[in-house]
């Protein structure tokens, strides 16, 4: 067992999801399977289902700062402040220079660049009309940087680029930096503003991987025979991470302990996932946690609703969890869409409350389960009540062959 200095716990959660702006509401909607995916109209592209967040954008900073900054920064500032408040942490509790801010991003700058090209198109592409805000908006550290400016944090901040595995990757970074003694507290999570980019939608469509459905709430259907692609969502989720020793000292509410993790690479293909490496990633995370597959109560799958992606992940789960009859499997994207850089952390947050209510929220929109995706204990269309939940394994995979897995354990004295 690691010492309490090396044990890292989650003590605060701040989030903005397409169906909620706080954890309590998020949990409620996930258990009820309430999707608020809607159709949006994108410049050049036209209509597409998407997840858009509704939250109080001026709760923690002025409208002027939202105009100057980015949508990702706006989401990040909201989530970071909410996480601090949820952790009942005053910003002065820790030395501000000893707080690290680590934010996972699938991409950044795409939205701002597209907007600016559109802007100069109104002026005959005269670059004299290109905004001076472009560089500070598009530097990769923009979202975590906006968080530090808003909270007055002077410790390190940077973004982790790991495609759609980025949220988990940032959480892992936060754990590592705390264990290394580089910081005393971390704000770690992920953000996505991808719904502002027509290019992201157009690229998925060109790849045959963009979801379509008459009812946008039914567009994201992982594991279902009728699945036809990804629903792009925006979102954010930031966690307060602390050393267990400190969390106990200040009598913090402890959501869970991050006991295992792994990041690995497929080293194979730009877009296609690879079950073998995904299985290795899950196994390595279990090994690091000192757990067996049978010890895991819930797996939050990464499955995005693409034909091959869902099958590959299910193959990987079968390899690792074939002999784990008490492991339940769900998918959060079916309800909120794919929040890209925020996906891993938002989906983990959606499951964290299971440590208290012992419920597993469902994968919705499964009317005809794909036999190639069928696994024991899939929680489909309605929630499942378990006797107890003490471990969650969270998968998050991304393009260019990156896999990330996090295991969180319920904290018990």
């Amino acid at each position, binding site marked *: 067992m690691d010492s309490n200095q090396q044990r890292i716990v989650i003590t605060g959660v701040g989030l903005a999801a397409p169906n909620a702006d706080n954890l309590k509401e998020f949990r409620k909607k996930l258990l009820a399977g309430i999707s608020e995916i809607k159709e949006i109209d994108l410049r050049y592209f036209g209509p597409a289902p998407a997840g858009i967040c509704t939250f109080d954008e001026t709760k923690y900073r*002025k*409208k*002027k700062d939202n*105009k*100057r900054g980015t949508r990702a920064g706006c989401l990040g500032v909201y989530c970071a402040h909410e996480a601090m408040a949820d952790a009942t942490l005053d910003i002065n509790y820790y030395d501000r220079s000893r707080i690290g801010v680590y934010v996972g991003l699938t991409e950044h700058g795409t939205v701002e660049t597209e907007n600016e090209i559109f802007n100069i198109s109104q*002026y005959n592409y005269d670059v*004299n*009309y290109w*905004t*001076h*805000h472009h560089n*500070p908006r598009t530097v990769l550290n923009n979202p975590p940087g906006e968080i530090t400016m808003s909270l007055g944090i002077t410790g390190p901040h940077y973004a982790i680029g790991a495609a759609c595995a980025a949220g988990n990757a940032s959480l892992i970074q936060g754990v590592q930096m705390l264990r290394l003694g580089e910081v005393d507290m971390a704000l770690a999570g992920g953000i996505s503003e991808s719904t502002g980019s027509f290019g992201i939608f157009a690229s998925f469509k060109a790849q045959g991987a963009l979801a379509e459905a008459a009812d946008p709430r039914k567009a994201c259907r992982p594991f279902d025979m009728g699945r036809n692609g990804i629903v792009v969502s925006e979102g954010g989720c930031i966690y307060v991470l602390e050393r267990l020793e400190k969390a106990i000292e200040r009598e913090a509410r402890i959501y869970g302990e991050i006991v295992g993790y792994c990041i690995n690479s497929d080293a194979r293909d730009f877009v296609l996932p690879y079950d073998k490496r995904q299985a290795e990633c899950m196994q390595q995370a279990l090994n690091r946690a000192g757990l067996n597959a049978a010890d895991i109560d819930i797996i939050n799958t990464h499955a995005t609703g693409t034909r091959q992606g869902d099958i590959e992940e299910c193959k990987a789960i079968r390899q690792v969890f074939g002999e784990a009859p008490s492991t339940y499997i769900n998918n959060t994207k079916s309800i909120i869409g794919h929040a890209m850089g925020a996906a891993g952390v938002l989906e983990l947050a959606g499951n964290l409350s299971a440590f208290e209510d012992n419920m597993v929220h469902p994968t919705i929109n499964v009317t005809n389960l794909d036999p190639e995706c069928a696994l024991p204990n899939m929680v489909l269309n309605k929630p499942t009540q378990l006797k107890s939940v003490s471990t969650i394994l969270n998968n998050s995979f991304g393009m260019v062959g990156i896999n990330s897995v996090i295991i969180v354990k319920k904290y018990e004295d």
Partner: protein
Amino acid sequence: MTRDDIKDLILEIIKDIDEDADFDALQSDQPLRDQLDLDSMDFLDIVMELRKRHKLQIPEEDYPQLASLDSCVNYLEPLLKNA
């Protein structure tokens, strides 16, 4: 544009940048940045808006002329006389 029109134009641009800007106590002969929540990037927004709205290309060496509301009006009056 009249001097009053130019003054209104500048205030309108500032309001677009910061809708919370309060002009009640604004002294027109004092630097805008000392009285309002404006920094160098906001100042460049004013320059950009003048370019977009009135095709004015203000050279960088003239930026100090836009420091106060009065100096803005003085500087822009001949440039916007036909606007």
